[in-house]
């Protein structure tokens, strides 16, 4: 088990290194000079070819690529001083670059933004997991009945509406028109738990309810399949009640594939829920990355992409470990 985890972490590290090289190559050796956004931001129309060259030279983009990558890696572990535009900024370890706009280290900004995304992700994911599994399980119990069919059709209709549209409509009606929910946004839970909660309640509900439709259908399918298993017949033949059969014997097995999907979905949430954060004005990773893309704030964009890779790799390892815990037949080797 431990050997397996170490093996997976090591291979995960290799993947992360490869991803970081790809990101490095994409942004630093892309069609446009990486110094161009900063040059234009600082100098506007006065950013001539000569000015751009000065920027490139000063920021080290003319050095050879391995050397630049080496400086980047070294910065991650020990920090470095970076010349950005006219000034020089200290970027402490772990250094992922200096934000072109704010001139703050990207790592520090990340530490500020991440709790917002984490809060949003945990609340939303908990909601859709619980709602999806509960409703899906109940639907499987009543499969074939009118309420089951209505539910399946309903979830299908709901999940075919684009998510951003649901977010925008919820924002317009629930907050602006009907005034049912407080203004959304992120506040630190340590400073004001009530504001934290009230600012996130609508995004949680929208994210949770919308995504729960997928989980409802998924859990229902998994449970329907499980209920046709021989060991369910055995459980009934023992004299267990229908509820014990479904919620003890059935759920134990039907939850396994749902947990797998959940782990991967949750990783995507942690990498930033772009629509939710942007529309509900939550200053998290998703909105940060999106805004950075508009502003061609390359250090931020590459940091967000790298983070996404790290989170997905980590969650894959965690899902595998969890899988071996819930299914005794799975042996990690």
């Amino acid at each position, binding site marked *: 088990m431990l050997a397996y985890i170490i093996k997976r972490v090591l291979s995960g590290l290799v993947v992360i290194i490869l991803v970081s090289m790809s990101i490095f190559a994409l942004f630093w050796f892309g069609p446009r000079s990486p110094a161009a956004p900063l040059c234009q931001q600082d100098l506007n129309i006065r950013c001539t070819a000569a000015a751009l060259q000065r920027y490139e030279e000063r920021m080290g983009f003319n050095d050879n690529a391995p050397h630049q990558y080496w400086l980047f890696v070294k910065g991650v572990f020990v920090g470095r001083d970076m010349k950005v535009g006219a000034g020089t900024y200290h970027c402490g370890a772990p250094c992922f670059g200096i934000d072109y706009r704010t001139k703050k280290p990207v790592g520090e900004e990340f530490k500020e933004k991440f709790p917002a995304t984490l809060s949003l992700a945990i609340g939303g994911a908990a909601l859709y997991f619980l709602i999806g599994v509960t409703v899906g399980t109940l639907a499987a119990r009543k499969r074939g009945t009118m309420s089951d069919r209505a539910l399946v059709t309903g979830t299908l209709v709901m999940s075919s509406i684009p998510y951003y549209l649901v977010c925008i409509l919820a924002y317009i009606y629930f907050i602006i028109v009907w005034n049912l929910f407080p203004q959304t946004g992120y506040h630190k839970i340590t400073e004001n738990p009530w504001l934290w909660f009230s600012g996130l309640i609508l995004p949680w509900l929208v994210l949770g309810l919308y995504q729960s439709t997928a989980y409802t259908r998924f859990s229902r399918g998994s449970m329907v399949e499980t209920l046709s*298993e021989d*060991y369910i017949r*055995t459980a009934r*033949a*023992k*004299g267990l009640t229908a509820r014990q059969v479904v919620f003890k*014997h059935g759920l134990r*097995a039907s939850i396994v594939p749902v947990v797998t999907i959940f782990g991967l979905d949750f990783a995507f949430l942690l990498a930033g829920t772009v629509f939710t954060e942007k529309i509900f004005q939550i200053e998290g990773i998703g909105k940060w990355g999106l805004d950075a893309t508009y502003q061609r704030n390359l250090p931020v964009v590459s940091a967000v992409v790298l983070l996404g890779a790290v989170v997905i790799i980590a969650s894959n390892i965690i899902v595998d470990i969890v899988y071996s815990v819930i*299914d005794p037949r799975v042996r990690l080797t």
Partner: protein
Amino acid sequence: MSQGVVQGGTGQSMDRADRPADPGAESESLATAGGSSGEPLLVVDGLTVRFPTHDGLVQAVTDLSYTVEQGKTLGIVGESGSGKSVSSMAVMGLHDPTSTRLSGSIRLAGQEIVGLSERRLQKIRGKEAAMIFQDPLSSLHPFFTIGAQLAEAYRVHHDVSKSKAKAKAVEMLDRVGIPQARNRVDDYPHQFSGGMRQRVMIAMALINDPKLLIADEPTTALDVTVQAQILDLLQELQRDFNSAIVLITHDLGVVAEVADDVLVMYGGRMVEYGPCKEILTHPEMPYTWGLLSSVPDVSSDPDTRLIPIKGNPPSLLNPPTGCPFHPRCAFKDKVPGDLCRTQLPELTPASTGGEHVKRCHLANPDTIYLEEIVAQGAALPQAVATAEANE
């Protein structure tokens, strides 16, 4: 503990739960504890099972009647779709009531099962009647330990602590011949071999000392040597626990080994019934002959080809008119008046007399075709092949 279902009987005052501790001493006195007024332990009377589907009504079981005495074994034989499993599931009340139409009567120790509420059925399942299945791997929950599954089966019907239930589980595992039961009780099903898993299933079925054990193809998924061990175990436990066994199988070899009586089903109906020995040596229904001639025989010439029953099982949606077996029967033209095609034969006493009954228009097949049988110098079942060859 619900003992109310047993009405009278001399052994009824005994605490059944105590029996496994010293089964041998008490089995004799319990042999008399059947139902009320001398009724056999299990009485199935006119059982009919129908499944309404989009394509029509599936006539899974039609007008099935049989009885099983305590301590006896009834073998139900038939091919897939003959209704043998469906009828036994009905005894446990395991059908989905919304998609099944059940009529007739099933009495277990005097208690009517058909139409009983789910709540009452739960009290009977696993307690009065238990079941083991064909594939012990898929029939055990893969995510729970053996011990947990056995203890759960015990705790459903006994108000005892978890540790006591687990001790009971170990005792039962030991009883069915699991070596080092105490160490293996926390293992998962996939850590056991096929035969051991079926022993676990048997232990789980017998943990509440049921009066009736339904074994649905208990040895089909096992290899031959393990099959014999499991059958021996079932017989041994039957003697100790004095339970009745309904053994469902398509393997006449299994039936020959353990059954007291045999019921042959075809197309949802009983087509022949009688004491095991008579059915195997003097079958009077061509379908039973066919079954017998498709069983390999160790003592026969190795070059002898097995004779399959030609054709396919009948549709349960549109059963054939007349005798359900007539489309595959080699003798249908030997019966005057085309009766086989037009009229369903009644169950009539066989020529051997006694309890042996058959559903066939042929008056006395043995004598009618004796000449052919003698001419071929073959065993009785081969008469079927001869008749087919002549056509």
